[in-house]
């Protein structure tokens, strides 16, 4: 009896294994067919990391493109954002790259200089609808070369819980001092006044930069008085318990959840969260203002570019990019995902005229700056993240953290000069 059971299990698992072998094999051959599909269209693959609620408009747009294009068919593969840089690096080593990739803008140059992406400057110049904003295009350009075309951009602002502010009879803050006094007044009964993301990845730097720039500090001078002041101000939210120490673990999506659940009264976050809050927390009464300032207004540029990989079919890819970033699609598409078009001929005033919240974000684009562009941004990014986390956890004083970051960054620069 027992022996029969064992035999049955082993036989069953072996059968399953054989099926598995077949399944794996057939998938493999399917993916190797690189050039064309049954309709005779050229097939190109695109890696993206869109998630709901952004993935639905994306799929719709893609289906429309594939429908109307005579020559090109775009296949997609979803790659988790965190995994993407790794997949790119390894894929580059193994020659297993897709034709196109969505890449977070500060990383475009790093991979471009690494030789992963093509220089598409000529193709871009030849495109008749290439009216993109210079400031945004710059994030994908280095040394006269162009490694990607931005398709959407976004920035950060301060979200506040209108009901909490009304109850406490407060006005939304405009300066650093006002921000702290609002946070102090609203931190009670387990609710924290302030929240931001300081997770150990690019989101931490992204959210710290507005503070750094507002004090007129910069990543190139992390040990300056201004930079240290910004770091001190930023880490004091946690030191004074005006922000939950869990910000060290929170991604921007987590911060949005906390805000949506009423666990914090204010948060720094990006425009795409407007969509999430409206969908998932329809009862929440929230407003958006410019990030309070020390000396100057500043926000940080987010968004992704489409890059064509070194062996990608550039012409076929460009047809898709020209459609996707072109005049007819770009404005409405980016609006549907609560982000902004990089096109200079898209009128955001008109597009967001009826939406004061999104309008605030759109207006802030005039003082939104990119990280870099710098060929070793990933390393600089790590140095800044380390400084932020070290100050937030009190492992180092803000001053020491900034000085260490400055030393690391100058080493990175030195290695680049070699």
């Amino acid at each position, binding site marked *: 009896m027992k022996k029969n059971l064992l035999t049955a299990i082993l036989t069953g698992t*072996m059968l399953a294994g054989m099926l598995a072998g077949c399944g794996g094999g057939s998938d493999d051959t399917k993916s190797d067919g690189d050039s064309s599909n049954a309709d005779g269209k050229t097939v190109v693959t695109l890696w993206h990391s869109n998630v709901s609620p952004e993935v639905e408009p994306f799929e719709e747009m893609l289906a429309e493109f594939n429908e109307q294009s005579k020559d090109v068919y775009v296949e997609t593969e979803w790659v988790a954002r965190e995994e993407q840089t790794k997949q790119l690096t390894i894929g580059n080593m193994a020659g297993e790259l897709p034709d196109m990739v969505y890449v977070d803008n500060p990383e475009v140059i790093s991979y471009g200089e690494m030789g992963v992406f093509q220089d598409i400057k000529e193709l871009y110049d030849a495109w008749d609808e290439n009216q993109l904003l210079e400031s945004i295009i710059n994030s994908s350009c280095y040394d006269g070369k162009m490694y990607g075309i931005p398709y959407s951009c976004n920035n950060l602002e301060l979200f506040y819980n209108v009901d909490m502010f009304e109850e406490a009879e407060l006005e939304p803050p405009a300066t650093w001092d006002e921000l702290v006094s609002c946070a102090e007044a609203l931190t009670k009964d387990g609710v924290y006044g302030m929240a931001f993301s300081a997770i150990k990845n690019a989101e931490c730097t992204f959210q710290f930069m507005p503070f750094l720039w507002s004090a007129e500090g910069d990543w190139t001078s992390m040990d300056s008085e201004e930079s240290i002041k910004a770091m001190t101000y930023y880490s004091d939210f946690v030191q004074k318990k005006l922000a939950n120490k869990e910000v060290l673990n929170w991604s921007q*999506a987590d*911060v949005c959840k906390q805000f949506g659940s009423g666990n914090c009264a204010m948060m720094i976050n990006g425009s795409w969260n407007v969509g999430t809050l409206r969908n998932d927390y329809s009862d929440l009464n929230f407003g958006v203002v410019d990030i309070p300032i020390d000396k100057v207004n500043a926000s940080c540029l987010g968004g992704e570019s489409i890059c064509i990989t070194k062996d990608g079919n550039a012409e076929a890819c460009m047809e898709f990019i020209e459609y996707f970033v072109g005049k007819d699609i770009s404005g409405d598409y980016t609006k549907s995902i609560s982000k902004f078009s990089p096109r200079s001929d898209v009128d955001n005033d008109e597009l967001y005229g009826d939406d004061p919240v999104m309008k605030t974000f759109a207006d802030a684009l005039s003082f939104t700056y990119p990280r870099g562009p710098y060929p070793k941004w990933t390393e600089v990014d790590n140095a800044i993240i380390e400084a932020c986390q070290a100050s937030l956890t009190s492992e180092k004083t803000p001053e020491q953290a900034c000085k260490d970051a400055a030393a690391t960054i100058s080493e990175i620069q030195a290695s680049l000069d070699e």
Partner: protein
Amino acid sequence: MRRLFRNECSRDIAYTIIAVIIAVVFLFPVYWILISSLKSDQEIFSRVQTWWPKKIHLENYINQILNKTKTANLPVQFRNSGIIATGSMILSLILSIPAGYGISRFNIPGKKPILLTFLVTQMLPASLILTPLFLIFSKAGILNSYLAPILATATISIPFVIMVLRPIFLAYPHEIEEAALIDGCNQFTAFLKVTLPVCKSGIITAAAFSFIYGWNDLIYSITFNNKADLLPMTSGIYQFMDAYGTQWNMIMAYGVITELPIIVLFVALQKHIVGGLAGGAVKG
């Protein structure tokens, strides 16, 4: 005689009570994952945790099974996990049972270096072999297939199974086998027909462990496969976190589904695993 029986009985009850208390404390995290997976967003993020969900939210499961989030395609990933774990288990059993037997039964020259090799291979952290393996698999053209994670996870379970089985085969009385040899079996058939059935409790343990290693793998699958329809459950949960932040209720629901087949398998095979060789040989 009667009194002895009563003592025996009350001792049994006392031990059982203690055992239940141990189990309740020890398995609390398992209770917690289950309970949290049934809570609403608001309840999970509330500052005071509840011991029982105010309302049972099965949609945490349903939405994921129906792939409403469009990232982690749970049914597909469940199948992928099954394929990888089963393949890895079969491969490692076929290779490691004979090896574990051979190394304990025969006094072959070079036994020590061979044992050392298995020991050493088992000690390797995944990050040590990740890059080289990727390059090998790339040359062999088996990236983006089930085979790559199956081969890689088998490298974890093979040495483990050998080390688990070695003491069992060592303790196994060879006289039984010799009797079979006298009866006209050759060495290999004696191994298959006599030794293996006697040691089956150990083999089932080995099978269970190698299945688990395959099922639980994260790093190999996400490194060797970048096609979403080949990724297993463990990567699904990871991607979900990446995409939507720490939605604990959803993550815990995903975790429960990830564990489910292993728990079913283990409960079904539990007595084989805990039985042990010596008892089986004496009784059987």
